[in-house]
């Protein structure tokens, strides 16, 4: 009999993947969104793709998860090019959407358990309940199993969506603007969650954000995307000391706090 504390641990058998993006191009009519993206994400690392709104971050993420087909270029996972129409046959790629994308007609428990039930990975309701409960504990939520998404705050929804991603037993988790619309305290909570996940779930993570503080807090490496091109990739320290004017301009403080009368 599996105990409550290790049900999830026993279930998870993630094998983190490396991802290589080669000369990826994508246009929507006349709008050339991704312009020859080359990027490598190493096994088990947390790579943050940093860029301002409209720079193509989400489109890039949607290519990795197979929701968009590139016009040219390819994505390689663990050395093998992936088929954009059949990405999920070889790798489990989970994504936490900016909108959380929880199913409004299902409660939290059913949302998190959906993958297990639909793929008939297990049929024992008690075991599913334990895994769901464990996954919710990992993201710092308790006692919300019977609540519906409409009863949750933005931060809670994001965490439930993360729990749903964990239960997929993913090889890689993608986060699309995980802190947009959240207050600074919740932003820190989500940041801690992403850091903890890497240890607890042992998974490769790609985080897309325009939140500079979050990027420097969670990243092993940062890739700066501007106007559909990767302009610099490096460790947070390298990005912080970058001499590239676009990078410097983007990460420099935008507000000067003045509290004097």
């Amino acid at each position, binding site marked *: 009999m599996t105990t409550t504390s290790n049900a999830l641990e026993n279930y998870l058998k993630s094998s983190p993947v490396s991802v290589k993006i080669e000369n990826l191009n994508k246009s929507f009519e006349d709008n050339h969104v991704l312009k020859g993206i080359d990027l490598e994400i190493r096994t088990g690392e947390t790579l943050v793709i940093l860029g301002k709104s409209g720079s193509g971050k989400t489109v890039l993420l949607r290519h990795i998860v197979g929701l968009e087909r590139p016009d040219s270029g390819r994505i390689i996972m663990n050395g093998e090019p992936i088929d954009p129409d059949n990405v999920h046959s070889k790798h489990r790629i989970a994504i936490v*959407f900016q909108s959380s*994308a929880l199913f409004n007609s299902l409660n939290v428990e059913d949302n998190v358990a*959906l*993958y297990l039930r639909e793929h*008939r990975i297990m049929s024992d309701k008690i075991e599913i309940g334990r895994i769901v409960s464990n996954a919710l504990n990992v993201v710092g939520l308790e006692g919300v199993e019977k609540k519906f998404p409409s009863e949750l705050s933005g931060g809670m929804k994001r965490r439930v969506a993360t729990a749903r991603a964990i239960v997929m037993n993913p090889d890689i988790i993608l986060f699309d603007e995980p802190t947009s619309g959240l207050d600074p305290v919740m932003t820190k909570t989500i940041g801690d969650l992403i850091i903890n996940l890497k240890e607890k779930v042992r998974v490769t993570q790609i985080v897309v954000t325009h939140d500079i503080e979050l990027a420097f807090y969670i990243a092993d490496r940062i890739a700066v995307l501007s106007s559909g091109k990767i302009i610099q990739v490096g460790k947070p320290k390298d990005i912080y000391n970058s001499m590239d004017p676009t990078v410097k301009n983007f990460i420099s403080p935008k507000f000067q706090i003045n509290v004097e009368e």
Partner: protein
Amino acid sequence: MRKIRNFFDSVGGLINLLLKTLYWCRAAYWNLDKIYLQIVEIGNHTLPVALLIAASTGAVLSLQSGPLLAQFGIEENLGGLVGISMIKELGPVMASILVAGRVGSAMTAEIGSMSVYDEIDALKTMNINPVRFLVMPRFLATIISLPLLVIYMDIVGWIGGSIVAKVNPDINLSYDVFFRNLSDYVTFEAVLNGMIKSFVFGILISIVCCYIGLKTKGGPREIGSSVTKAVVISFVLILIFDYYVTRFLLLVNLD
């Protein structure tokens, strides 16, 4: 030119969705709970209104035809007239219009909202086929429920017609005569005729409404537009197909 291309795109898309849905019907056994839930939804949405519509239609049919038949002394044929009208034409068409308006619109709104708020994308990333998860249960529930709803409306319509035939002094037909005449005319072929029509309409409603829901992009405003579009297209297709299905049934001597 663009409109013509869009039209053919949509026709192709509808056929494609129908074929995919038929393919995924093989997973029906594993999705019985979802199909059952949809059948209950359809019942909840339609049964009370169907009762009112069918009773009123049957009653009006009697009220208008009965005195006329009585003038010629052939009022005993009223049962057959009401029976055949309801089972072959009014039952299937009214039930389908009702289901398209009440259930089809809800299907489009729900699936459209899921499209707009990334839920369909979430299903795809979880390797859950949206056609299997969303369309197939609604498709099977509609093609199972609609013929049953037609039978229900037919019976209610007959009862409504028979009550008017009995209580209206200009007709004054006993229940016995009304239903004996009705049973002479309402043959197995006539029942089958109504069932085939409702089956075809069920396919149309579910596929059109789910397709338009899946194609919804944008925001809440687009969900509203999609619902209107789905209902209008369903109505038009029901009426067009009604004619061609009737012609086909005549051709195979089922009318």
